[in-house]
């Protein structure tokens, strides 16, 4: 009888050890992949059994990179001609970008590729174009329309979906992960963050926001659920010439780097392409324009705005979700 009890306890110990092992590695099992695509580094982390889902998500992003890269003359977006029927991978992000352009008085402009190229923001051979060259490139940049899925453009139009491509890629990658059984994941596509579900324990994700004056550091942490979090800032791509710094977010009005008094704008929104495109447009608009767009309720988004005087402003949805990590910036104030 005692022997049986003893064996039972031994068996119990074995089960206990196995349970400890499961607690240690099974429940919080996570897998991360890093890869380079869309001219940046991408990290995707999935929790639970992800199987081949991560690799499939990577394949999704890489196929979009091949299709949407305006710098590649062979890409689907580069070979687009007047009268072509738009494939879905172009029409979807294009539709989002056009909606943003329409509601922001053209603050997001998909035809500025020749101008950005003249500044050297694609080749990294930076230069300040002359006022005459900027004027000429603005005038000759062309225009396009889409009607019933058919693309129509004037001569010289070079469509660039770079302002929404990473966000759209995140949307598609999340869709791939979801279809392959993943329900908890976080993607960082070169600073574009997108979450799927919540963390495995049901808690919020914590997404930090880069300090625009010291990008290796952070300004604050945001507690978020399932959302896209995208930042546009003057620090992300810039160069200094004759003591003046020029950044890559060009104003479609002037052809010069936008001077809206902002250091960065972080947009939170369910749709990644929308968050991506809005962050660029909002940076061009400045604090007043952001407030006006937010109050019109045409798009469902929240924003964290950092101005040049180190003030931090947030929209209503971020109240109680921001924890400052750098005290040299103000505590977040409502964008009013």
């Amino acid at each position, binding site marked *: 009888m*005692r022997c049986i009890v003893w064996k039972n306890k031994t068996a119990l110990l074995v089960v206990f050890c196995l349970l400890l092992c499961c607690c240690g590695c099974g429940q919080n099992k996570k897998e991360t992949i890093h890869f380079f695509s869309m001219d940046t580094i991408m990290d995707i982390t999935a929790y639970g059994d992800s199987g081949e889902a991560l690799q499939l998500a990577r394949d999704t992003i890489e196929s979009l990179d091949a299709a949407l890269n305006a710098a590649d003359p062979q890409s689907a977006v580069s070979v687009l001609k007047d009268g072509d029927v738009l494939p879905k991978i172009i029409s979807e992000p294009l539709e989002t970008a056009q909606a943003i352009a329409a509601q922001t008085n053209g603050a997001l402009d998909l035809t500025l590729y020749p101008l950005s190229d003249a500044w050297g923001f694609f080749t990294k051979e930076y230069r300040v174009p002359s006022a005459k060259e900027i004027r000429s490139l603005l005038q000759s940049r062309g225009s396009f329309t889409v009607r019933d899925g058919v693309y129509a453009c004037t001569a010289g139009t070079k469509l660039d979906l770079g302002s929404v491509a990473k966000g759209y890629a995140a949307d598609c990658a999340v869709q791939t992960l979801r279809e392959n059984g993943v329900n908890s994941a976080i993607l960082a596509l070169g600073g574009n963050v997108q979450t799927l579900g919540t963390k495995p324990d049901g808690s919020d994700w914590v997404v*930090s926001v880069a300090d625009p004056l010291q990008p290796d550091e952070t300004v604050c942490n945001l507690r978020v659920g399932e959302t896209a979090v995208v930042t546009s800032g003057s620090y992300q791509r810039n160069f200094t010439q004759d003591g003046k710094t020029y950044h890559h977010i060009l104003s479609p009005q002037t052809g010069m780097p936008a001077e809206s008094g902002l250091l960065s704008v972080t947009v939170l929104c369910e749709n990644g392409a929308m968050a991506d495109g809005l962050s660029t447009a909002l940076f061009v608009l400045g604090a007043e324009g952001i407030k006006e767009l937010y109050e019109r309720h045409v798009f469902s988004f929240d924003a964290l705005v950092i101005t040049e005087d180190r003030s931090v402003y947030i929209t209503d949805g971020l109240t109680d979700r921001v924890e400052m990590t750098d005290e040299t910036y103000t505590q977040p104030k409502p964008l009013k």
Partner: protein
Amino acid sequence: MKRIHSRSPSNKFWIAVFAAVIVLCIAFILLSKMFSGHVAVITQDGKEIAQIDLSRVTESYTIPLEGNVILVEPGAIRMHSANCPDQICVHQGVLHDTGRIVCLPNRVIIEMKHTKTQADAKAG
């Protein structure tokens, strides 16, 4: 009957065994994290080039890669040089126990293993 009873481990014995298992597990987890805290992983184009335990480095040396040179020092690692125009990775400084240095043009990543940050991801 009495002899059998004396050979059977008591409840106290089993409590001690279970407690020991828990302590060993915790110690194992803590020690494995402690010893992996200073390991830098170098990859180029997705392929692992090296894993270096910086706490065991006694003399500085360089690792030449295609387009980059990495400098390994006792307890530290950094990008010494790169053949790209912007030199962002060179200016990213030194890693000790956390963080990551990335050279986009040459697709090189130096990452401290098990880097733990407060945040799950960083926007920007």
